[in-house]
């Protein structure tokens, strides 16, 4: 059986890869001819400003190459029958008029096509032909004909060497049996024309955020130069928030991502136009995610971006095309002139959702998104059908990716047996030992990312002058699927036995090229990566000098490549057990889910009881009972045979490596030693005990303490709540994400129990993102009073004996007010556990600046650590709510299952190795090795037995401390041997400049 995934955006891609890596067959259905979704249109991703395509493209290629994934693009679901475990799905694949199996993606047809059609990828700001590829890195890389634009001239058919164009292609019906379905339909962007007062579609210099994104992109309409419609470079830009969000007339909910992407747009725009003045108009700045608040601070402090706490009422156009923006702030009206206005449009449910809700028989919520429950955040109303990404609520990429993994974890449960999908068969490896090096060099343009600063053609020609290079070429995108084909072809045609690619960083793209070598029958280690983008074109301006430097880097790469040797992967067995640290919501969820997959779990909790923070939550904002959830989880965990719970216990030590860890748990009954293959860190976080605002006084309490009181039935008559206590300050720059929600939840509860109670909330920004906005709106309607304060002018809490009073400044009245409530409630920060530091040392995984655990990649690997076999879930990652915690826990399960579902894992071959003829067993390396991977062993020789150092490869990390310690160079790390690096140095320094 297999899984159907509908939607080929980043969520669909992640879910596909997780399931496919866990050994399941996946059908990925995409409406468009290519996958990639919204993320493929983004220039950069917040908050790291990573190039979006750079991190997406390897994933696209992974999907395209994965033996367990079948992409069915340009297709839609027509009918679904059956039930969980056995769905029968009917899919209609619409004709593309190009035979995908024949098209090489060469693009000759598109250059000759006489039609100019609006380019959707560039949001209507450029033209494409009628036969086209949505974007250069697209997967599948096959052109399609847009018949609504095609004039039927037949040129493409005539010029296509591959004979791929087929005007007669018909639609195709595909029928599949699948055990479960994941909906990753994505969302639609709000049509800004519906907010007529902003003049979108009428004023040419009012554009949407996605258009601005395309303008900023190097692959955009002006190659990354920001121009207005009249060709002028805008020097004063207004960015308007909440266009189609938080708006009673259109969509009442918050779209969650716009404030941070507007911040990103402002920063990137400043980088493109350093003297530009950028204003962001937002009612509240909702930068609530991990690292987002720091990002917004950087925008303000380093880039001089101006944030206005205001909503724009109307825009007028002047004759010169400039725009007058009318806005209100603190009850006063202002007008300001701008060159360009960018509308930060929000998300809506996509068109297909309604249709699909009927086909799949699932319920939608009041906003037309897929309905989920906050305790089962990826489950739809129909068993066996799951949802991920924006289809159920607007959210950013990491949350979508986490949900995708989470839905994959759920989908796994319907697989009775793992489909036996074999390892991809690679052609037999060619034996190149003894061959003279025949090196092929590929220089990447990376669009214009490299080519604009480095003369790639000159570089490719230079490569030809180097010894051993028999082939050299330059390509537009070395990472694209067609470039991989070119590399393979060159390997074959020129009998190459070493490949050097000069492109971006090996840290992201090395696996891709190694695989290409394998597909071409070459050992993957006969590959050398030369970084001429991150470490050359992006950090230099002078083209001549940058080109010289690139030559020198390439020369080093070629010198090293000459000495590359074929290496064999190291295979190790996997212990199918998991260690879960932390018995809170995340830990228990993960344990139960893993146990359902047949994985034995060790659940370690430092407290005497399971439950963690969940123990202190008595109701949720949407009226659910977390205590019921807690009781259910604890009961299930404690009665599960596959879960061994250690309470009052901590991790004492960890040894070993991915698939084979050996840990010592300190329990009240002594030390317990366990073996396991994976680790999930779910150690949670805690509420900050404030030092400010008179905390400690009987009448000054935190939100959690208030909730406990209300839980006991003590409802205060008057409350002043202060937001951002201990968050968003110099010590703790991050936003704690959950406290706005907590304040409103408690305010509503007070109002529910005592409608006469007075609740005043003093806030900086109310961050009720997504559908939580409804509760903010409800609280206002029910008489909760919200008063804004700034960090420069914070409220003051004074205690006098048993009395407490709060003095605060009201911006609208323009005066200081004093309130004497029954209780002052501090919305206190969520802070990382103190023991994170020690744990991070034990596990050798990093913490971020704030002391939370740092994931492998903030966008695409939210629950992985850089260290293989260790995963992250819950509040240990960052502050979050119950549904988000559950998603992350399930995501960690899915990621762990990609490992634990295997009997064997294959490890990198770059390990230490001893050249026995030179080793004399002095033992310096043995004692220097940080993981004790080296031993002195006896080896039989013709004359007797001799002692030599010997490396235990499964333990060796390949760090090379041994190799630098050895006086005779007898132990080397393969791929970084003494002579390989020495040669690289020679090559590097041989080039003048």
């Amino acid at each position, binding site marked *: 059986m297999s899984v159907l995934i509908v939607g080929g955006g980043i969520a669909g891609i992640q879910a596909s890869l997780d399931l496919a890596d866990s050994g399941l067959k996946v059908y990925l259905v995409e409406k468009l001819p290519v996958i990639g979704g919204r993320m493929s249109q983004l220039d950069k991703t917040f908050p*790291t*400003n*990573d*190039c979006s395509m750079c991190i997406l493209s390897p994933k696209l290629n992974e999907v395209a190459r994965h033996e367990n994934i079948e992409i069915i693009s340009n297709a839609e679901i027509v009918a679904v029958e059956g039930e969980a475990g056995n769905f029968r799905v009917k899919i209609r694949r619409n004709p593309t008029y190009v035979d995908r199996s024949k098209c090489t993606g060469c693009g000759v047809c598109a250059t000759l096509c006489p039609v100019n059609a609006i380019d959707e990828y560039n949001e209507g700001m450029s033209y494409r032909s009628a036969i086209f590829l949505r974007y250069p890195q697209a997967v599948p890389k096959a052109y399609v004909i847009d018949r609504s634009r095609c004039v039927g001239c037949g040129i493409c058919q005539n010029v296509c060497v591959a004979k791929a164009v087929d005007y007669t292609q018909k639609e195709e019906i595909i029928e599949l049996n699948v055990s479960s379905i994941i909906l990753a339909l994505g969302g639609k962007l709000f049509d800004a024309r519906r907010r007529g007062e902003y003049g979108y579609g009428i004023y040419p210099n009012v554009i949407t955020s996605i258009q601005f994104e395309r303008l900023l992109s190097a692959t955009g309409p002006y190659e990354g130069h920001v121009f207005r419609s009249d060709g002028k470079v805008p020097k004063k830009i207004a960015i308007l928030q909440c266009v189609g969000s938080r708006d009673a007339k259109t969509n009442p909910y918050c779209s969650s991502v716009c404030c941070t992407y507007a911040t990103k747009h402002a920063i990137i725009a400043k*980088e493109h136009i350093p003297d530009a003045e950028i204003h962001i108009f937002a009612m509240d700045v909702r930068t609530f995610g991990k690292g987002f608040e720091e990002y917004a601070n950087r925008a303000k402090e380093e880039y001089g971006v101006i944030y206005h706490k205001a909503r724009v009422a109307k825009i007028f156009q002047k004759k010169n095309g400039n725009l007058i923006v009318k806005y209100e702030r603190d009850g006063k009206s202002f007008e300001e002139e701008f060159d360009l206005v960018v509308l930060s449009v929000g998300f809506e449910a996509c068109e297909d959702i309604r249709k699909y809700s009927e086909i799949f028989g699932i319920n939608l919520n009041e906003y037309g998104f897929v309905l989920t429950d906050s305790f089962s955040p990826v489950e739809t109303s129909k068993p066996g059908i799951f949802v991920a990404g924006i289809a159920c609520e607007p959210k950013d990429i990491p949350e979508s990716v986490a949900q995708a993994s989470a839905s994959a974890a759920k989908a796994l449960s319907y697989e009775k047996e793992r489909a036996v999908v074999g390892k991809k068969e690679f052609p037999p490896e060619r034996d190149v030992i003894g061959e003279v090096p025949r090196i092929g060099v590929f220089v990447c343009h990376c669009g214009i990312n490299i080519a604009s600063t480095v003369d790639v053609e000159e570089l490719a020609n230079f490569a030809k002058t180097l010894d051993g290079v028999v082939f050299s070429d330059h390509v537009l995108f070395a990472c694209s699927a067609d470039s991989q084909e070119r590399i393979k072809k060159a390997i074959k045609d020129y009998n190459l036995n070493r490949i050097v690619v000069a492109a971006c*960083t*090996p*840290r992201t793209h090395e696996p891709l090229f190694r695989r290409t070598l394998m597909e071409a029958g070459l050992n993957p280690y006969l590959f050398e990566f030369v*970084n001429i*983008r*991150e*470490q*050359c074109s*992006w*950090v*230099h*301006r*002078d083209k001549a*000098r*940058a080109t*010289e*430097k690139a030559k*020198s*880097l390439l020369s*080093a790469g070629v010198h090293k490549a000459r000495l590359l040797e074929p290496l064999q992967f190291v295979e190790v067995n996997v212990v199918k057990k998991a260690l879960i640290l932390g018995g809170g919501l995340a830990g228990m969820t993960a344990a139960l889910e893993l146990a359902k997959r047949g994985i034995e779990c060790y659940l370690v909790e430092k407290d005497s009881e399971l439950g963690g923070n969940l123990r202190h939550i008595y109701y949720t904002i949407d009226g659910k009972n977390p205590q019921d959830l807690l009781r259910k989880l604890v009961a299930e965990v404690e009665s599960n045979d596959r879960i061994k719970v250690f309470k009052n216990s901590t991790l004492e030590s960890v040894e070993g490596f991915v698939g084979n860890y050996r840990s010592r748990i300190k329990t009240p009954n002594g030390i317990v030693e366990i073996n396991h293959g994976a680790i999930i860190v779910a150690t949670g976080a805690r509420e900050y005990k404030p030092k400010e605002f008179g905390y400690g006084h009987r009448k000054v309490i935190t939100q959690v303490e208030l909730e406990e009181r209300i839980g006991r039935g003590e409802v205060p008559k008057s409350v002043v709540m202060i937001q951002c206590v201990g968050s968003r300050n110099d010590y703790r720059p991050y936003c704690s994400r959950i406290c706005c929600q907590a304040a409103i939840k408690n305010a509503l509860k007070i109002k529910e129990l005592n409608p006469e109670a007075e609740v005043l909330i003093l806030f900086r920004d109310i961050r009720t993102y997504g559908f939580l906005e409804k509760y903010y709106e409800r609280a206002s309607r029910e008489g909760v009073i919200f008063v804004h304060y700034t960090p420069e002018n914070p409220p003051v809490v004074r205690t006098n004996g048993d009395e407490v009073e709060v003095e605060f400044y009201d911006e609208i009245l323009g005066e200081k007010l004093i309130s004497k409530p029954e209780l002052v409630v501090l919305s206190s920060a969520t802070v990382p556990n103190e023991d994170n530091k020690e744990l991070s*040392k034990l596990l*050798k995984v*990093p913490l971020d*600046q704030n002391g939370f655990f740092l994931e492998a990649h903030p966008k695409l690997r939210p629950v992985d650590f*850089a260290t293989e076999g260790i995963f992250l879930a819950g509040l240990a990652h960052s502050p979050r709510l119950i549904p988000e915690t559950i998603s992350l826990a399930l995501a960690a399960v899915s990621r762990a299952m990609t490992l634990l579902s295997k009997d064997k894992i294959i490890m990198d071959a*770059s390990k230490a190795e001893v050249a026995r003829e030179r080793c004399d067993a002095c033992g310096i390396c043995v004692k*220097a090795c*940080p*993981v004790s991977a080296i031993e002195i062993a006896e080896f039989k020789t013709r004359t007797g037995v001799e002692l030599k150092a010997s490396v235990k490869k499964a333990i060796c*990390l*390949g*760090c*090379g*401390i041994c*190799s*630098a*310690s050895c006086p005779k*160079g007898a132990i080397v*790390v393969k791929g*970084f041997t*003494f002579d390989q*690096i*020495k040669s*690289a*140095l*020679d090559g*590097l*320094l*041989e080039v003048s*400049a």
Partner: protein
Amino acid sequence: MKIVVFACNWCSYAGADLAGVSRLKYPEDVKIIRVMCSGMVNPAWILRAFRQGADGVVIAGCHPGDCHYMVGNYYAKKRYILLKELLNFIGFEDERLKLLWASASEGKKFAEEMAAFKNVVENLGEQEKLRWKE
């Protein structure tokens, strides 16, 4: 000037990548050789670099305590001190050898340190003492 940087894969190489992603500028003279850990940098490579005409050499690794391999950077520092002392003792400008801790998030630091080191090396002039000539 020719400046060779041995950058560890996990921190400094990633930091240099971040400098690129952030489009921070530093001199073209700086050229990076990727190693898995600063602890694998063999002093002989550094001498080889000087022999082949490097004007400056940087060993760049994770901050103490942050090493991906726990302790590789401590070993790097140990060898660095030995070599630096010896180079100084024979009258070689030991400022041409630099040890730098730069994390994956310190793109800015990396770029700034490279610009500063280039200045140091430029003030010393071309490295002649160990440069090998036919």
